[in-house]
Every structure is written in structure tokens, then in C-alpha cells.
């Protein structure tokens, strides 16, 4: 299927289910997703996979598994923004690939992401920061999306 013909709806947590091959599939899809554009091929992304019993209570979105996406810090703001952008490109790649395999990816942000102590608890090294937490799960039912007419682009000319 062409990407042009694909459509994606927001997933609700109650549809997300575990399957034995979830981790393998995520790794397989990530190997495609790392082809995201990233400036000077810095590959700023790192992944921490969390599932079931290992889950801390502050990770309170319901999902069978989570992928914490981190990136290396850079003292240069421009580079930091480029790297952040590249990581979001990778997240989008993964979201598209996963949708095709009935694997839902929800992108979550938490206040504690910006707190070193919490990051340490998750095993994030001090030279890295958390970009987002992906909530992962298979869905057997594709939720009906209410029809939303596409919003007009905010468009202007130089």
C-alpha cells in the first residue's frame, strides 16, 4: 500500500494487547525506522524497553510494553534541536511501520522526564535525556475514527 492511501486514527488504551513476539517485532521495525533523516548521521537515539513486572508506577499509561526513547545531550542548542527533530522522525517512522502490523504506538510525555532522579531510576545515563515514552500494544479492533475534515494549513508566503 502507498503511504498516500494509508490512514491512521488515535488509539485508545483498552485495545492494546500483549503478544509474545512484541519485542522481536519492535526491534525489527526499529531497524527500518533508524533510516530516519538525522544530521551528519549522528544517530542520536537510544532505546530502553520496559514491560510487565519491571514497570515503575510513575509510568502510568496503560500498555503491555513501553519503549523509552532517549537521546544524547548536546550543549549546542542548534545541534540539540536537530537531534530532537531526528528522533521524532524516527518515532514517526516506527508509528507508520507499526500501524501496518496492527501494533499501536502512542507517544506519551511526562513531567518527570525532565527530572534526573526519575531518569536514573529508568537507567537513563546522565549524558542522555528522555524524548518520549512510546506505549505499545497490539490491537485487534481498529477504533472507528469520527470523520474529521482536514484542517486548513496555516500557510503564508515570504
Amino acid at each position, binding site marked *: *500500500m*502507498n*503511504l*498516500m492511501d*494509508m*490512514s*491512521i*486514527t*488515535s488509539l485508545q488504551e483498552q485495545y492494546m494487547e500483549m503478544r509474545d513476539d512484541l519485542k522481536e517485532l519492535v*526491534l525489527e521495525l*526499529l*531497524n*527500518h*525506522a*533508524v*533510516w*530516519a*533523516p538525522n*544530521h551528519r*548521521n549522528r*544517530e542520536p*537515539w*537510544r*532505546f*530502553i*524497553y*520496559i514491560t510487565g513486572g*519491571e*514497570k*515503575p508506577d510513575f509510568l502510568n499509561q496503560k500498555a503491555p510494553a513501553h519503549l523509552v526513547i532517549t537521546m544524547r545531550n548536546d550543549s549546542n542548542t*542548534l545541534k540539540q*534541536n*536537530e537531534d*530532537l*527533530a531526528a528522533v*521524532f*522522525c524516527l*518515532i*514517526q*517512522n516506527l*508509528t*507508520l*511501520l507499526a500501524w501496518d502490523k496492527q501494533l499501536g504506538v502512542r*507517544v506519551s*510525555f*511526562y*513531567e518527570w*522526564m*525532565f527530572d534526573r532522579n526519575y531518569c536514573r531510576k*529508568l*537507567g537513563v545515563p546522565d549524558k542522555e535525556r528522555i*524524548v518520549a515514552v512510546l506505549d505499545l500494544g497490539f490491537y485487534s479492533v481498529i477504533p472507528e475514527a469520527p470523520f474529521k475534515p*482536514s*484542517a486548513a*494549513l*496555516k*500557510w*503564508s*508566503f*515570504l
Partner: protein
Amino acid sequence: MSLESLIRERRTVRKFNNLPVSEALVKSLLQKSEQLCPHDGESQWRYVYVGTDEARERLSGYISEKVLESRIARLTLSKVIESYQRRFLKIPAYLIAIADTDHDPIKNEEIYGTICRILQNFQLLSWEQQLGMAWITEPIIQNELFYKRIGLKEGERFVGMLEIGYFDKSPKARARTTADRYWTDSVYQ
């Protein structure tokens, strides 16, 4: 083309041919890009498009303006700047993406993340139409003077400038590190 191939084979294109780019096509690809990234509420990002000779001329002036502020640069770099400007004038279309900022760090991250994801969709959808682009963030366009020229407002941030056009040759890929090298299983007890 499968989604896997599309994602792996998309390349950043820096050399374009002379085929014109249709603004209507860019808009429809962007619209689809936004749909493929569901989000709540009104969009907190906007686009500035450059597609006419006149606008290209203006943009290319803005890009070199910062360098030309320096008298030494004017004297020693004038040839370089001229060739730079000629290159900028030949690029069929530009799309500048601008996002709102927010005092709440979560909101701020979410807005920036969403527009970056939309731009990735746009790169992929364009590749499917044989339309190439380069996402540019060079320091030469990331300074207060350039921001002012493109109309960046207080409370907004520059996300990127995409150079867009058709191309004759697809650039070579640079290999990527496999994901398992960057993967850890949770250590949380």
C-alpha cells in the same frame, strides 16, 4: 513501494533539476502529512512558502545578509557568496516550518515533536512522488536577523527550511547502525 522500502530508500536530496514544483501538490502532501499524525486541537505550527522568482530572490538575499554584515567577509568572501546565492536562486521551492513555543516543557516538546513528525511524513510522501528535499538547519539561517526577515514572531521557533525539487540522481545512502546496538532491556526493579 512497500512502507519499509520507502522509509529505507528515502534520501536527502541536495541537487535538483529544473522541473517546476507545484504549490498545490506541496499543500496536498502536507495536508496528508498532518492527517497521518493525529493530534488534538488547532495546529500550533505554520508554513512559509517560497515558490516565485521574486520570493526566491528575496530569500537568497536574506540568507547572505548576515555574512555580508561583516566588511571583511564582503571583501574576501564575495565570490563564495555569489556562488551561494546562485545556488539558492535555482532551488525550485522552499518550505519554512515554524512552531509555537510553550512555557510548559511537556507542551513545548509535544508541539515541536508533532511538527517534526509531520515533516517526516511529508518527506516520505514526497519521495513516493519522486519529489526530493533537504531539511536545512545551518547556522547561516539560524540567527536573529534571518528570523526577523522570515517573520518569526515572539513565542515562535524555527523548525527547519526544506529545499524542495525534482532530481535526476538519487544520492547514495550512508549506512545506519542497527537498533539492537542502541537497545537496552529495562533495569528497573
